[in-house]
């Protein structure tokens, strides 16, 4: 069975807590807060004003550039405020607050549930529709999908890779989508293939989800989806990393930044994103909701909710009996790459595939001691870097040396911190180094242009 060539770890996947909970639709929240930045790139500009009536699916934030995404109202109601509010990390962002009145949708959206498979649009039309709908990568990185599909001149895509790996422990939203909405996903994949002009698509799924693999294969055979192949992968974290997945499925190595997967003839998209693409192109439905896993061993109950964006975390947690007593760690995402949330009144955004609740004891880091030079971090790094060195260089602020040691290649998967027997916060420091080096490279590029 295939997997990526170097590094990686095997954390317990903990998916059993929520994997059998089917996708639930919940009562709409009475109020949503929509941040104007839910994507990589320039923030969107609000196009509504306080007091405006909006419909579900109406544009509220216009993309602020090519690398940016539109933002639509997830509910219908009245805009009560446009101001800065704290996000999950306490950082204040511009948000549009909408109070709900009923659930009226924009007329052009097709709300029927039947599958619409035929698509005769040209690639440019498909990309335009995806752009209008504000679709971004739902795996977590929130990269605008239309940018990814706009292939630069002189390069050609050979195949589409669909990321159904979901290697992050606990999370099951992609899994539930594959189990319950496979037809929509596969149609979305067909549309994506059409948009980039390829005949072949590989769906990578880890072998801890055998029923998803079987179900997808069954639907592909039954409904004759041509050129789409499901490839089972040997379970290993971080298989869902873009470069790791490409290496696992095709054996190709993407060069270090600024090279993109397209330089190897590959475009990678998340499995849930394919559903968003299907809805955007075939149903004219903008990206206003997604499946969010609410999970954790200490929670009253676990769920996979179909959640409108802007819904507060508190509202979702109320269905699980609220936060457990005592110290807890609330994560936007899973335990490996998720970001800790300090304010549970914060809204759910496009990149949030799940909320993981860890008890204080589960989340506690071990006591730090000195590096014993065991090189475990080096052997688990999927990018072939030397984490102990990069961490030390960042601590000493030797940014130029860190750059020579390719610190910007780091994908922040956290394998090094996970495996360190001395409990060193390796990734914490590497991220600082990576951010500083990237800022240095950018300012150098600007200086060179002048």
């Amino acid at each position, binding site marked *: 069975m295939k997997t990526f060539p170097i590094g990686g770890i095997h954390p317990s996947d903990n998916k059993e807590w929520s994997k059998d909970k089917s996708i639930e639709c919940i009562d709409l929240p009475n109020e949503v807060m929509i941040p104007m930045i839910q994507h990589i790139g320039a923030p969107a500009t609000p196009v509504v004003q306080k007091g405006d009536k909006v419909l579900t699916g109406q544009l509220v934030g216009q993309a602020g550039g090519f690398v940016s995404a539109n933002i639509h109202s997830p509910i219908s109601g009245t805009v009560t405020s446009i101001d800065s509010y*704290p996000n999950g990390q*306490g950082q204040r962002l511009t948000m549009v607050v909408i109070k709900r009145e009923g659930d009226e949708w924009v007329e052009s959206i097709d709300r029927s549930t039947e599958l619409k498979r035929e698509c005769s649009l040209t690639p440019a039309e498909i990309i335009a529709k995806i752009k209008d709908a504000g679709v971004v990568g739902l795996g977590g990185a929130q990269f605008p999908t239309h940018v990814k599909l706009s292939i630069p001149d002189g390069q050609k895509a050979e195949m589409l890779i669909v990321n159904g790996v979901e290697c992050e422990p606990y999370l099951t939203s992609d899994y539930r989508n594959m189990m319950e909405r496979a037809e929509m996903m596969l149609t979305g994949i067909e549309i994506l293939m059409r948009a980039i002009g390829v005949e072949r698509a590989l769906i990578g799924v880890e072998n801890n989800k055998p029923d998803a693999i079987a179900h997808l294969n069954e639907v592909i055979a039954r409904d004759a989806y041509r050129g789409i192949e499901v490839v089972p992968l040997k379970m290993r974290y971080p298989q869902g990393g873009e470069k790791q997945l490409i290496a696992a499925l095709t054996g190709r190595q993407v060069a270090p930044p600024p090279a993109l997967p397209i330089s190897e003839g590959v475009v990678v998209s998340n499995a849930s994103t394919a559903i968003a693409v299907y809805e955007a192109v075939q149903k004219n439905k903008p990206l206003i909701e997604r499946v969010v896993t609410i999970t954790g061993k200490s929670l009253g109950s676990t769920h996979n909710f179909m959640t409108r964006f802007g819904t507060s975390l508190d509202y979702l947690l109320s269905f699980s009996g609220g936060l457990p007593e005592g110290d807890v760690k609330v994560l936007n995402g899973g335990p490996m790459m998720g*970001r800790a949330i300090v304010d549970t009144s914060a809204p759910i955004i496009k990149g949030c595939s799940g909320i993981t609740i860890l008890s204080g004891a589960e989340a506690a*880091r071990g006591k730090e001691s000195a590096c014993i030079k065991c090189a475990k971090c080096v052997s688990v790094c999927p990018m072939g870097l030397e984490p102990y060195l990069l961490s030390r260089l960042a601590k000493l602020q030797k940014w130029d040396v860190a750059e020579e040691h390719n610190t910007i290649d780091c994908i922040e998967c956290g394998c090094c911190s996970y495996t360190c027997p001395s409990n060193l*916060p390796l990734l*914490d*420091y590497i*991220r*600082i180094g990576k951010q500083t080096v990237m800022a240095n490279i950018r300012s150098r590029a600007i200086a060179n242009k002048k």
Partner: protein
Amino acid sequence: MNTLVLTVLTLSVLGILLAVILYFVAQKFHVEEDPRIDDVEKMLPGANCGGCGFAGCRAMADALVTRENIASLFCPVAGGQTMKNIAGFLGKTAPEKEPMVATIRCGGTCQKRPKVNHYDGAMNCAVVNSFYVGESACAYGCIGYGDCVSACKFGALSLNTETGLVEVNPDKCTACGACVKACPKGLIELRKKWPKNRAVYVACRSKNRGAVVMKACKAGCIGCGKCAKVCAFDAITIDNNLAYIDSEKCKLCRKCVNECPTGAIHLENMDPLPKEPKVVATPKSEVAK
């Protein structure tokens, strides 16, 4: 015995030979350098802190000797007197600069700015700042893991574990500016140093609206503007819900300190003005007559 003599002889001959070669090489590649650079370097403090903007004291000495106009060069560690001595030695006009001191503009102690979450990652302010706003609800306040303390080469900064804030020892501070660069929240400012380390400054950097500040911290500036109204020297400006006292214009009159409703304006090494100003009493007694 023979071996011993042979060894000593060989090494001596080798030593003399190499010395001769070195002598001629030194003659050939001799670099003419102003001997005053060495003298000036000796007069500088030798901390190599980079506070002057040069890589170290040697580079600074070189610039002082070679440049015509040294008005823009100043060693904050040595201070005005040493700079005057150096300028006198070189026959140039000394740069004039008032002494400065690093000031930490956050008054959010553990009591006034309660912690709302617990952080257990790397104990480093820059790391905390890259993750989220910090353990308190204030996005602008001191994180308290001491990046500035480790950046200070003069031991002028220390972390007070009771308040959770960093404190400056003005007598040790040389205003080199290393801490200013180290603070990810931009809390530290170099301000004019008054005699006896007196100081008046706004100990807050929060640009949030008053209501938001009050929720997060009881010692924050709410941008009410009362201080700016009483200031007779136009030293106080309000920008983005935040008061700022210009240390060049401030005359330490202390009127603003009594006006501040949250106590965000800090007064150091001075007694505050009496709460009820005496001047008010005089007209009242006149009315009574």
